[in-house]
């Protein structure tokens, strides 16, 4: 069950503020890092929405991210449509794919669900990879960015683009939190904790799960739209399963089922990667050891661990 606790609000605000400050004060590369974190954070929020609150651990969120990016790229670079139409089509495409996967895989659970989503994701990857119309493995370039000059934002400026991405993270988080607090969200949590009971109450569980998966996919698609505008180039690598794997790592690292944790997890993983990467080519090794250590230390994720400490302290104070 989701509660927008003060700690969650504080965590999201602190991480976003710190990143914004980093982008404003840092040079060019910090802004690239902030954008990378923002994209990963949106994906992580969208995955945590279904995995943490709906029990649907997906290994196709990378593919959905790619579908969003490709739909936006195709509409602007090939179709010549304006960015607003392209955004709507990309969100719809991601949501439709999510609805399909969610509906078909609704009765599959546990590791089998992970594998089923992997299968659908890989199918999408192969289709894009083989598609000559979408440029195949050469990818697509010539993608337009939003024109927000009317409200004084220059999207071609790296700082303003980075801040825009951070704003989308907040919007995605707020949207996910809003849905989770609604009746729909409470029902989703109910299905997660006991699907049979919810069925007995007369609920069509699979339909509910499919809609939830579709909503989550729409958020992932939004991240894809930003990714396409960021590099102004899309290639099939966006859809590969290892992208989904990285998102899953971020969610678990930040704290599964905390919604705020994954945002912190995204910042932590990306910063760690770049800081270690500056010293050694073998940054995978250090990240790997870090992941192992993080789980061995308690496995609640960074945010989850902080929440746990605070709760324990509160408990001790209550005892005293």
């Amino acid at each position, binding site marked *: 069950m989701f509660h927008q606790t003060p700690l969650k609000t504080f965590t999201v605000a602190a991480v976003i503020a710190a990143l914004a400050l980093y982008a404003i004060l840092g040079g*060019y590369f910090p802004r690239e890092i902030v954008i990378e974190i923002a994209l990963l954070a949106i994906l992580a929020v969208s995955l945590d929405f279904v995995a943490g609150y709906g029990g649907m651990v997906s290994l196709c969120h990378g593919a959905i991210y790619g579908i969003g990016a490709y739909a936006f790229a195709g509409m602007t670079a090939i179709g010549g449509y304006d960015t607003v139409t392209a955004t709507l089509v990309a969100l719809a495409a991601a949501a439709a794919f999510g609805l399909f996967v969610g509906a078909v895989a609704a009765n599959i659970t546990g590791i089998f669900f992970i594998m089923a989503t992997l299968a659908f994701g890989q199918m999408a990857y192969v289709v894009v990879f083989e598609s000559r119309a979408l440029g195949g493995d050469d990818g697509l370039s010539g993608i337009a960015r939003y024109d927000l000059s009317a409200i004084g934002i220059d999207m071609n400026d790296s700082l303003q683009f980075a801040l825009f991405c951070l704003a989308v993270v907040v919007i995605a988080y707020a949207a996910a939190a809003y849905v989770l607090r609604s009746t729909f969200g409470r029902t989703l949590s109910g299905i997660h904790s006991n699907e049979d009971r919810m069925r007995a109450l007369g609920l069509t569980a699979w339909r509910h799960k499919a809609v939830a998966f579709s909503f989550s996919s729409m958020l992932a698609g939004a991240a894809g739209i930003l990714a396409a505008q960021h590099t102004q180039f899309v290639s099939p690598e966006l859809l590969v399963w290892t992208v989904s794997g990285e998102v899953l790592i971020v969610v678990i690292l930040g704290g599964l089922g905390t919604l705020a944790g994954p945002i912190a997890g995204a910042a932590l993983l990306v910063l760690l990667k770049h800081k270690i990467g500056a010293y050694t080519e073998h940054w995978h090794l250090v990240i790997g050891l870090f992941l192992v250590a993080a789980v061995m230390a308690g496995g609640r994720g960074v945010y989850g661990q902080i929440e746990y400490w605070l709760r324990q302290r509160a408990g001790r104070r209550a005892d005293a």
Partner: protein
Amino acid sequence: MKKYVCAALGACASIALMAHAAAAETKVGLLLPKSGNYAALGQEIDDGFVMALEEAGMADDFTLVREDSEAKPPVGVAKARKLVLQDEVDAMVGIVSSAVLGAVRDFVDGSKVPLIVANAGNDAATGASCSKYIVRVSFSNGQVNRPMGSWMAEQGIKKVYTLAPDYAAGHQMIDAFTESFTAAGGEIVGSEYTPFGKTQDFGPYLTTAKAASPDAIFVFYAGGEAISFVKQYDSFGIKKDIPLYGSGFLTSPLYVKAEGPAAIGVKTSLHYVPTLDTPENKAFVAAFKAKFDRPPSEYAVQGYDAARVLVEAVKAGANDRESIAEGLTKVSYTGPRGPLTIDPATNNVVQNIYIYETVADGDALTQKIIGTVPEVRDPANGCSLK
């Protein structure tokens, strides 16, 4: 007195300025994969690059900024932007993967920073989507394979079956070969593309290829796939009936040791072979072996020549982004791989293509050159630089 001091100070200042101009003036960003599947190639290119700078005695004149592209397009773009906007490099060198090259192309062209491509072979990079700022010293996919088509037809080979991984480079390599082979009267009796990066077992494809009973098989594979392919080809015992030909990456010195005796008799075409019998190459191979204790591969030469063209351009007076881009296209010299010039029409390298056979040399394997196609120049392919 005052005047005298001023003059002295002025002289000092100008000497200091000149010294500064001579030392560490050109900042170069090396954008190569340092992790992931292409890390070995990135290292070879890096080694060749550093060696050429040292050989020219100009290692101190260049400041190098290294970034790991991970051979992933989004990472490559981010790192290219970092090199240009934050480090403010005067030139970029590297790019192993064609996907990364495609991703950074618009940015490089827009920011007007010269990029010396040291591997990625996508034909379009010096064709339809060529740029004044992108100069390629490595090869294009078509350039390496086109000469092989006519050469094989000349050898009296009539029917060929082709195999390659199913991605852009695989298609371009096979297309270039097919075009020149059929133009010379040859016939392609069958052709298959194997799933890229997912095929380890070539058994089913080899069995199908054999059943088409061609005179020869022509393939493109590189890296781990090349090793698997050559060994499996040998184990199926097809080699004695149907000889194996291919793009020279198949039996690159980098992999041939792992392929072992299976590689004997394989004939391939490439822009560099370490056994080339020229004074330039002998000196290069000896120097490389002395420094790194292994023979240089074509990738090391690409790194070497990337540095060499840059050095030549700087020596000729280029000192900023615009003049380096301008100067690179005028470079011409005879290096380890023979005469090398940059085609001003496409900015692609013009070079010899060598056809070589992998042969046994005691317990080791070596390359015997059996044909040279001089100064191969790519058609403009829709590029209109000149």
